[in-house]
C-alpha cells in the first residue's frame, strides 16, 4: 500500500518522463520543423517547378538543374562566395582570437571592453551596411577624409571591382570578430591556470606556450568558431546587399545575392530555389569536411 510495485512505478515514470520531455521540446520542435525543415523541403520541391511568382507553377522536373549547370553566373557567384569565405573566415578567426587573448586578463573595467567589442554583432546589419557605405564614400567618406590628412587620395572603395570585395569582407570581419571573441574567451578561461605556471617554470616563452599549449587546447572552440564562420560567410547577404548590391559588375555577387536577384528582382522562384539547393549542398559539404578533419585531431578533455 505504501509503496506500489517498483517495476510499475518505473514504467509509469518513464512514460511520464517521455511525455514531459516531448512537451518541453514541443516549442523548439515546432520551430525546427516549421522554420528550418519545412522551408528546406519546400525549396527542394520548388526547385522542380517553373514558377515566376505571378504565374501558375509548372512542374519541369530537373530542367532548372540542367540550366544551373550551364549557368556561368552561378559558378561565378560560387567563386565569389569562396573568395569572400577565404577572406572572412581566417580574418575573423585570427582577429577574434587575438582580441580574446587581449581581454583575457583581470583588469578593472575589462568587462566593459568586452561588451564594447560585441556591439557590432548586436547592431542591425542593414544599418551597419549603410554606415559603412558612408565611411567608404569616395568623396565625403570618413575613410578617405582620414587618408586625405596624410595627403593620400583614397580610392573609390566600393565601386572598384578589385577593392569592393575586400571592403565588404572587412566589414564582415569587423562585425563578427567581437562575437567570436566570446567563444575563444570562454575557451581560454577553461584552460587551467596551472598549465601556464608549469610551462613558464619549464622556461617556455609566452609565444611557445600559446602555440604548444593554448592553441591545441582551444581546438574544440576552434572547431565551433570555424564551422559557424564558414556557414555564416557562405550565407552572408545583408551588408553586401546594402553596400554594393553585388556590384560593381558582378564582383561581389555572392551566391545568396544571386538567389535574391533571381527570386525578388526577376521573380523566378523556381530557379532561385534551385540555386539555394546548390548552396545548401556546398555548405553541407564544407561543414562535413571540417568536422571530419577536426574529429581526428581534437581532444575535448584537458585532464587525463
Amino acid at each position: 500500500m505504501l509503496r506500489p510495485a517498483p517495476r510499475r512505478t518505473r514504467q509509469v515514470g518513464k512514460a511520464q518522463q517521455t511525455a514531459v520531455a516531448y512537451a518541453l521540446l514541443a516549442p523548439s520542435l515546432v520551430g525546427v520543423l516549421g522554420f528550418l525543415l519545412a522551408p528546406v523541403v519546400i525549396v527542394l520541391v520548388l526547385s522542380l517547378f517553373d514558377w515566376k511568382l505571378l504565374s501558375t507553377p509548372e512542374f519541369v522536373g530537373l530542367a532548372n538543374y540542367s540550366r544551373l549547370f550551364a549557368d556561368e553566373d552561378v559558378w561565378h557567384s560560387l567563386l565569389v562566395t569562396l573568395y569572400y569565405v577565404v577572406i572572412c573566415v581566417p580574418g575573423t578567426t585570427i582577429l577574434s582570437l587575438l582580441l580574446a587573448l587581449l581581454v583575457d586578463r583581470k583588469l578593472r573595467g575589462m568587462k566593459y571592453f568586452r561588451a564594447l567589442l560585441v556591439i557590432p554583432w548586436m547592431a542591425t546589419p542593414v544599418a551597419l551596411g549603410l554606415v559603412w557605405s558612408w565611411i567608404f564614400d569616395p568623396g565625403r567618406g570618413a575613410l578617405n577624409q582620414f587618408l586625405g590628412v596624410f595627403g593620400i587620395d583614397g580610392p573609390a572603395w566600393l565601386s572598384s571591382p578589385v577593392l569592393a570585395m575586400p571592403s565588404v569582407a572587412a566589414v564582415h570581419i569587423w562585425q563578427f570578430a567581437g562575437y567570436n571573441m566570446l567563444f575563444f574567451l570562454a575557451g581560454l578561461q577553461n584552460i587551467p591556470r596551472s598549465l601556464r605556471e608549469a610551462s613558464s617554470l619549464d622556461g617556455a616563452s609566452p609565444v611557445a606556450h600559446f602555440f604548444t599549449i593554448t592553441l591545441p587546447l582551444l581546438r574544440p572552440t576552434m572547431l565551433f568558431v570555424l564551422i559557424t564562420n564558414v556557414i555564416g560567410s557562405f550565407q552572408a547577404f545583408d551588408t553586401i546587399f546594402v553596400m554594393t548590391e553585388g556590384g560593381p559588375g558582378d564582383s561581389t555577387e555572392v551566391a545568396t545575392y544571386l538567389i535574391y536577384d533571381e527570386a525578388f528582382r526577376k521573380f523566378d522562384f523556381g530557379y532561385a530555389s534551385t540555386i539555394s539547393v546548390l548552396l545548401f549542398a556546398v555548405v553541407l559539404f564544407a561543414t562535413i569536411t571540417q568536422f571530419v578533419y577536426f574529429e581526428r585531431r581534437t581532444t575535448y578533455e584537458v585532464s587525463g
Partner: protein
Amino acid sequence: MSLSRRTFLIGAGSVLALAGCGSSDDKASGGGGKVELVYRLWDEQQEVGYKAVFAEFTKQNPDITVRMEVLPWDQYWTKLTTELASGKAPDVFWLTVDYFPDFASKGVLAPLDDLISKAGLKLDSYHPNVVQSYKFEDKQLGMPKDMGIVGLLYNKDLVAKAGITMPAELTWAPDGSGSFLEVARKLTVGSKQWGFCSWNHSQTQWLNWIASNGGRAMDKPYGAFEFANQKSVEALQFARDLVFKWKVSPDGTRTNPPTGQATEMFYRGEVAMFPANNALLPFALPEVKFPIGVAAMPAGPSGRTVVINGLSEAMFAKTKHPDEAGKLVAFLGSEKAQKLMGDAGYIIPALNNAGAGYQAFWKQKGIDVQPFIDSAAGSTVNLPIAEGWTAKSPEINKTVNDLYLDKVPVADIAASMDKIGNDK
C-alpha cells in the same frame, strides 16, 4: 488561351462588382460606410503633393479616405509583386512601363476602360505614348499619370566659368561632329571636371542615342530587339567614345550601377551636363549649390527623339473596394488631380495641355523647363516592353555596364543584349 480567359474573367468580375456596388451601396457598407483605400508609391517628394490630391478627393467623396504607403524603389517591387501573387495588394498603386508587361499578362491589373468612359474622361486627351504603354490586348490597364521626359540638365556656374553660352540647339553625330561634343570638351577641365556623364542608364542615356541616330531598341512592343542593328551599334559606340575617345565623361568604374555615383557627381559639380528625367528636379534642387539650366537633348543624325517614361495609376484586380478604388483612379486621371500635382512642380501631367502650372512653378525656382515640354511635344519613343521584361531588363542593363569599361567590343555587347531580350 487560358491566360486571356482568366484576364477576361477577372475583367468581367470587376465590371460586375462595379455594377453590383452601384445598386447595393448601403447594404455593402454595414460598418459605418467609411472606406479606407491603400495607395502605394515610392516617391517621398510626390507623397507631399498627393496629400493635397487626396484631401480634395475625400472632399468630393466624404466616405472614402486614402492611406498612402511609401516604399523605397527596390522594396516597392518586391513587396508589390509578392502581394499581388498572394491576392492582398494595395487598392491603387504606381506602375512603370518596365513592370507593366509582366503584371498585365497575369490578370492582376483591373481593366479601366469602363470607369474611364463612365467618368467622362477620354484617353485621347492624354499623351499617346503613355496611353499606349499601358494598353494590353486592347484593354487600358493603367491610368496615365505623368510623362517622364528626358532633358539635359546643366550646371550654369560651370558653363559661365568656361565662358560659353549654351547653344539653343545641341547636335551630335557618331563621328564626333556637332555642337554637343564641342561644348562638352570646353566644359571638361583636368581630371576632376567632366563636360558630360555618359553612363549606363537606359532611359536617360543610350536609348536616346539609339533613337536619335535613327535606330530602335525593338521593332514593335512585344516584338524583336534590334540592338545589334547598325544604327543602334553606332549609337552605343558613341556612348563609349564619349568616355574613352573624346574623354569628356568619367568611365564605368565610377558610374556603373549599382555602386556608381553618376547622379551624385552632377550634384557635386564634377559633371557639367547631365541628362535626366524631369522627375529628378525636385530631388536635385535641394542637393545642388549651383543654378540648374535645362536644355533639350542633343539632336542626332535623324533629329531629336527622346525617351518618354510616363507612369500610370493601376488598380488591383481583386481589390475589396472596386467601386471606391475605381472612383479614386478616375479622380487621379481628372484635370483637377493632374493639375494639383503639376502646379506643385512634381510632374508634367500626362493630360494634354495641363503643364502650364508646372512651368510656372519651376520658373519661380529659377529653372526654365520649357525644353522638357517641347521635347514631350516633339518626337518621343517609349521604353521597350516585352514579355518577361522584369527579368530581362536587369540582365540587359548589367550587360551594358561593359559598354563603359572599354573591354568587350560594342558589337558583342549589342548581340548579347538582343540575345537576352529575344530569349523566350
